[in-house]
């Protein structure tokens, strides 16, 4: 009934090294190798391609955070991991939309238990949304200062030049105030 998906699959170990190095090639490979499987699964279970895209994205995030925290052990295939995560995520979404009338999914691959990873992911996901909201409320120029300093890892010198502060100390004071406000917003939400 379902066709076998043929594509070159990179060795799992290579992928993990690539993830640790934030390699864009690895990410492209992940998409090329595993997205068709997820698309097939979602299409077979009352979803469309946008659903598949969201689900797959979320599963990659789960994979990245697991690999980066050093918790990914190659005791199972990467494919199985991604499939299991996607399956769980999709089941949850179906239940929310109550579109899953039969309460059964048409399975295409083997499964493994990903409960813990997903619980961890949900926690992180909540944090992510909270931070997103807090940064949005923070407004400019604070948002950019924080992003430049903490995410892009730019030096205070660069930042003070970019924003036209007379010296790095003024920029530091500004950054301090921004950070305090962000903290307040983040924990208050």
């Amino acid at each position, binding site marked *: *009934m379902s066709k076998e*998906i043929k594509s070159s699959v990179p060795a799992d170990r290579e992928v993990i090294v690539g993830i640790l190095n934030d390699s*864009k090639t690895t990410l492209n490979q*992940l998409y090329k190798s595993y997205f068709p499987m997820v698309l097939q699964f979602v*299409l077979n279970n009352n979803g469309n391609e946008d659903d598949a895209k969201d689900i797959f*994205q979320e599963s990659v*995030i789960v994979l*990245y955070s697991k690999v980066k925290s050093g918790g990914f052990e190659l005791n199972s295939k990467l494919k199985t991991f991604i499939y299991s995560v996607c399956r769980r995520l999709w089941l949850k979404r179906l239940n929310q939309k109550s579109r899953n009338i039969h309460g059964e999914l048409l399975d295409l691959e083997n499964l493994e238990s990903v409960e813990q990873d997903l619980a961890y992911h949900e926690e992180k996901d909540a944090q992510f949304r909270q931070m*997103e909201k807090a940064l949005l409320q923070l407004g400019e120029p604070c948002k950019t200062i924080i992003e430049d300093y903490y995410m*892009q890892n730019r030096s205070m010198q660069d930042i003070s030049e970019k924003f036209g502060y007379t010296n790095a100390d003024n920029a530091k004071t500004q950054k301090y105030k921004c950070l305090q406000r962000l903290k307040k917003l983040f924990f208050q939400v």
Partner: protein
Amino acid sequence: MKSEIELLNLIEAYLKGELSSEEHAAFEKLRNDDPSIDHRVVEHQNFINTITEYGQRKQLIADMEAAYQHLDIEEIKANVLPVSVKIRTLFRKYRFNTAIAATVALVTVFATLLSTGYFSKTITNNYSALRRDINNIKRSQNELIKGINDIPDKGPVNPGEFGGTGFALSSNGYVITNYHVVKDADSVYVQNSDGESFKVKQIYVDPAYDIAVLQIVDSRFKSLAALPYTFKKSGSDLGEDVYTIGFPRDDRVVNRGYLSSLTGYAGDTIAYQVDISVNPGNSGGPLLDTKGNVVGIINAKQTQTEGAAFAIKSNYILQSIGAIPQDSLDTKLTINKKNSMSGLSRTDQIKKMESYIFMVKVY
């Protein structure tokens, strides 16, 4: 305020490893000595982690969007879409057309069945109501009665299409029989033991209990004497001896038997099962006990079972008669309450009753 900023800068420098080794050692000591500073360090570190994780994830999402754009979704979709999904898509597209077509088909089928009378024929096959199809008999005996049927002034000579039995409810001309006997009738006559026919009209039918009440409207009819029998109000007992008088042919026939069950066909509680031999034409006949009480009205028998006839219970008959609106009647219908046959032998009872039992002829 100033010191707060300095402390934070110090913590950041410490976390980033920008401090010189002496400064680092000094800060470590400060952290060890002052738990509140230690607490601040951990708290700050966590918060910075959250921010960097947020940044990483945002970056990852952007990268993924880019990677997704590289894919040829349509092609992948065509490759992975299994046949069943294609069928499902087709089904989704055409399900309304299919539903309408199916509805039309169903309506057609039922309309055809209805118009050909399929549903009205579904009476259980092995249950036969005991009215007599006189035409059959007429045909087989036509030659025998030819030439002798010129009885003048006694109503129609045609024996009718169907026949059954009825008996008087009251002396002023009310007769009870089965609903199925007079159903779909053009006109109904009753014929007494002397062979006189009287025209009757249906004044009440109760299809649920299979009961019809007729009234003799013929001018030649004279009131009967007081009825010798009465309806038994209470239920009867199993095994009780009963008999019936009816017209399974053109003359009275008496059959006897006993109550064999307190429920009728398929557990019907309004009827008794009676072990009695009855035939088409017995329908509507009274079922009497040894004292001359009417305990029921014969209405049917089971065709594939020996000795299983059915009679509607007298209390249901009374109930049904009680439901007749008295205002709609020309003359009052009073049910006789006095039984004058209880001490008589069966032959005397039959003799006394004969003028109250009628053959019902249906045209």
